[in-house]
């Protein structure tokens, strides 16, 4: 059984967006440990450099700074990469606001980063035939909007709900080409997604009590779910949403 590891990513080339921090950085770290060759992208170059520096075997990895809300930058990114075995779409933002305060500026920004950027990047990667015959796409969606409804979460929830629907359509249309497509749907994870001070410590503690496991998740706990979906261990899994939420959606 020496070296037996069905979750290995040895020799797989994987593109990861939102790799400058949070779940994207943790995913990069785990994928590198499991042997993947990574192409990392984010709008935040400083964060990308610091992710790259934390990786195993860092010379085989590279990063491309990109603003994926701009078509020309998506095209440039796609033109700079070769054939992929994996793609993790992870970049995301939020800004909590009650329905009465939903506004076009914030909604367009959130939709543009959380929904349209992954849609158009996926569309172009498929169109340019950048996926190998045994490849895997993973979208970081959320339980929010898809399985749970929370005060102030309308704009983020809408953006993630739409992405969840897109994931299933990609899965359906790409299966014939050997491309699988799935999502991870995390509950609240300790990342920089919410600006410090958005919620008080008291509110956070109260919110954690709504999780049967009485805590928020760590980025690595989501990253390892993404690893499973990227690896050949999930070779018959497509169109699936893997909930990683400490039991939050059990209620």
């Amino acid at each position, binding site marked *: 059984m020496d070296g037996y590891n069905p979750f290995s990513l040895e020799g797989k080339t994987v593109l990861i967006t939102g790799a400058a921090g949070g779940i994207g950085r943790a995913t990069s770290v785990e994928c590198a440990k499991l042997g993947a060759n990574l192409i990392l992208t984010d709008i935040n170059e400083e964060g990308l450099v610091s992710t790259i520096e934390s990786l195993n075997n860092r010379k085989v990895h590279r990063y491309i700074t990109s603003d994926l809300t701009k078509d020309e930058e998506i095209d440039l990114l796609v033109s700079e990469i070769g054939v992929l075995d994996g793609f993790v779409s992870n970049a995301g933002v939020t800004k909590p606001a009650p329905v009465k305060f939903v506004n076009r500026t914030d909604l367009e920004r959130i939709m543009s980063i959380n929904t349209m950027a992954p849609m158009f990047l996926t569309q172009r990667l498929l169109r340019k*035939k950048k996926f190998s015959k045994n490849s895997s796409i993973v979208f970081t969606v959320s339980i929010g909007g898809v399985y749970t409804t929370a005060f102030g979460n309308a704009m983020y929830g809408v953006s993630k709900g739409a992405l969840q629907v897109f994931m299933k359509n990609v899965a359906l*249309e790409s299966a*014939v*080409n050997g491309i699988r497509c799935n999502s991870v749907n995390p509950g609240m994870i300790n990342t920089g997604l919410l600006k410090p001070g958005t919620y008080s410590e008291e509110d956070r503690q109260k919110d954690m009590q709504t999780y049967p496991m009485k805590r928020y998740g760590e980025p690595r706990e989501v990253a390892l779910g993404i690893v499973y979906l990227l690896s050949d261990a999930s070779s018959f899994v497509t169109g699936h949403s893997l909930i990683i939420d400490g039991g939050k959606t059990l209620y």
Partner: protein
Amino acid sequence: MEIKEFIEHFAEQFDDTELSEFTPRTVFHELDEYTSLIALSIIAMVDEEYGVTLNANDMSSSVTIEDLFNKVKAKV
């Protein structure tokens, strides 16, 4: 519009079919890889490249690639 270019765009919608199989006289419904999804891709390609809206009847009544090319050309 040129048929050579049309055939190139047509062939781009397929992944596994040899390029040499695409000629004006190719009976495209009989290609192993041809599916309803590829038919939809061809309709979308014609809309994007030529600004022409094809309907399902245009697809089913075209036997060869050239037949389809002529339908698109008539609508440009």
